[in-house]
């Protein structure tokens, strides 16, 4: 039998499709109520949203006219999933970065240093959870290194502002692609952060027991 056996189900599927096979007919005996689907065929106007906070940013795409990112990829924001856990940590880091920025104005460099250390620690916790998006993980990794080696004497207000903005971007766009991740890293670099310091990388490797070098050898470049 070559007759197509697909059902014609025009009353059920949103995108009901015409079945033109000859000799078929299907009757559905149930409520005859027409399925009124979406009002969405109408053009919609969505007001632009302000991105003034971490949570505000998370509810709108960059252009402010699309569905919120947590509607598009809700699984990313599930607190029990790795991605959701990552975002919770990013939220914490964002708060730490804002605290550092406020302390910088005081000026309270000790608090700045402690907040940056806390951010580095948070980034270290996030990194193993970033398998869902390597681009996202690359930015996390850069921030971890940058905040680990940063001296509070060298940190600037633009640098801290940039860090706050980048953390906000991470939170609002966990599905970022490589280009977007590169842009964020470039933004950090241009505001004075150094996340690709060779010595720091060696030190981190040593701290994580990933290095074959002796600890003394690792420290040599730091004490010329």
């Amino acid at each position: 039998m070559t007759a197509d056996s697909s059902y014609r189900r025009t009353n059920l599927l949103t995108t009901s499709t015409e079945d033109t096979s000859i000799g078929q007919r299907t009757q559905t005996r149930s409520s005859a109520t027409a399925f009124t689907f979406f009002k969405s065929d109408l053009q919609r106007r969505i007001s632009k949203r302000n991105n003034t906070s971490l949570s505000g940013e998370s509810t709108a795409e960059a252009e402010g006219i699309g569905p919120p990112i947590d509607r598009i990829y809700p699984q990313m924001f599930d607190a029990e999933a790795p991605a959701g856990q990552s975002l919770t940590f990013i939220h914490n880091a964002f708060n730490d970065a804002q605290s550092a920025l406020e302390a910088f104005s005081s000026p309270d460099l000790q608090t700045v240093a402690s907040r940056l250390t806390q951010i580095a620690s948070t980034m270290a916790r996030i990194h193993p959870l970033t398998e869902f998006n390597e681009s996202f993980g690359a930015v996390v990794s850069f921030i971890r290194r940058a905040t680990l080696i940063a001296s509070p004497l060298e940190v600037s207000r633009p640098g801290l502002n940039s860090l706050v903005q980048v953390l906000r971007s991470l939170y609002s766009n966990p599905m970022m692609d490589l280009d977007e991740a590169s842009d964020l890293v470039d933004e950090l670099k241009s505001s004075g952060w150094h996340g690709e310091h060779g010595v720091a990388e060696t030190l981190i490797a040593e701290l994580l027991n990933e290095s074959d070098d002796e600890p003394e050898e690792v420290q040599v470049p730091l004490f010329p």
Partner: protein
Amino acid sequence: MILDSYKLYSVVVQLQYAEAYEIWDRAGTISKKLSTIWPDITTQKASPDQQILRGKGVRIDTTIKKSTVTLTGEKSFDQRMIQRLKETFEVWREFLNLNELERVSARSVYVKEFPSVKEANAELFSLNLARWPSSKVFDQPMDADLNGLEIHYRFEDESSFAVLTLKAEEIVYEVELDPYFIAESEQKVKKSRLIIDFDRGLLGSVDASKFRMDEWIKGYQHILRRDIDKVITKQL
């Protein structure tokens, strides 16, 4: 979870966009690309503004304003299908030159079969989703087999929507074949079933270049499974 006792029957994934006139120039390329993604599909219809490709358990419609993949069968949401949906979206995005999606939606239909539509309706009544009158109304008999409910839950704002539908139905499927070839030329099959139909979509403007179809479908499944028992709870 209530869905565990149901079988996935079909999945429809649809994109809507501003007129993609590129379809007039690239229809052949699109069909060729899609045929590398979906094995054994053949062209059912090809006109300037619409192409329909069909294969076993799949139908792909590409048109100037919207494009759709319709899958049937229990494996419509398995990893291989999600990958194919992702690749199909990428073909549309590239060759229809899609920059912005006006709507992205997916609809899945889960079914549970019953010996009769009356039993399917009884199951739906047992969910206590609506109040049924206790005495005869509208001059209709209270014990008619086709008495039943059709329940729609709609959750919608300017960004997205979710519509959950439950209903019992009896489908009569009839085929008339050429008696010259087939002795039993008239065939008729009847099925009674309870349907859970979940329709979810994004509204407004979605950046096509950043949209990840595979992750979006995972999100669709995630929230359906996470939340359906909050809406429908079987009364024990």
